[in-house]
């Protein structure tokens, strides 16, 4: 069984300061991990993915995430927050194809960016 825990349900940052969103996972497989962002009344947009290549993964809009197997973590960071980063973020682990490619979602972290 797989599970994902996002350690903060809400994060508030000032524009121009760093953002850190924390995620821990549990997986029976060698995990495929993703971060998605959801803006209000929109679908989920893929920010980045980890699939057992480099442990530091760069994504869109200046985000990156580091896979740490020893800590079972996949934290998302951005050096400088922008107002447009205000959204909800989901850490996700994927089953392999033999198990249906299904996703297990974290509970989400809502990011507020203050001017």
């Amino acid at each position, binding site marked *: 069984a797989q599970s994902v825990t996002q350690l903060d349900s809400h994060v508030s940052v000032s524009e121009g300061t760093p953002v850190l969103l924390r995620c821990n996972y549990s997986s029976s497989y060698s995990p*495929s991990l*993703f971060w*998605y962002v959801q803006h209000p*009344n*929109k*679908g*989920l*947009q*893929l920010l980045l*993915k980890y*699939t*057992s290549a480099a442990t530091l993964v760069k994504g869109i809009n200046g985000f990156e995430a580091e896979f740490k197997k020893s800590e079972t973590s996949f934290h998302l960071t951005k050096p400088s927050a922008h107002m447009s980063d205000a959204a909800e973020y*989901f850490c996700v682990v*994927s089953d*392999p*194809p033999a198990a*249906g*490619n*299904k*996703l297990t*979602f974290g*509970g*989400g972290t809502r990011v507020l960016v203050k001017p």
Partner: protein
Amino acid sequence: DVKVTQSSRYLVKRTGEKVFLECVQDMDHENMFWYRQDPGLGLRLIYFSYDVKMKEKGDIPEGYSVSREKKERFSLILESASTNQTSMYLCASSLYRGGQPQHFGDGTRLSIL
């Protein structure tokens, strides 16, 4: 870029109606998925399909059915709509290969009155 298109952004229906939600993807993906998203409950998988005419139950299939007659199209059917099916519905697609992300549509906000 992958495009997943859901036929309606907003939909209002009445209790007892049969409701069809349509989803089309343009990237020849094998897998397609239907989720509903509710505050405090997150995203929950209703049904998924990994090939034409194939379907598998997700975590909350009761009250729903699906149809996949063509590879690019995956329909969600509410057989007899009820108020507790008021929700945001999200469709997604992905390649069958391991490690592939799902690509999501913009969602349909469905209200059952």
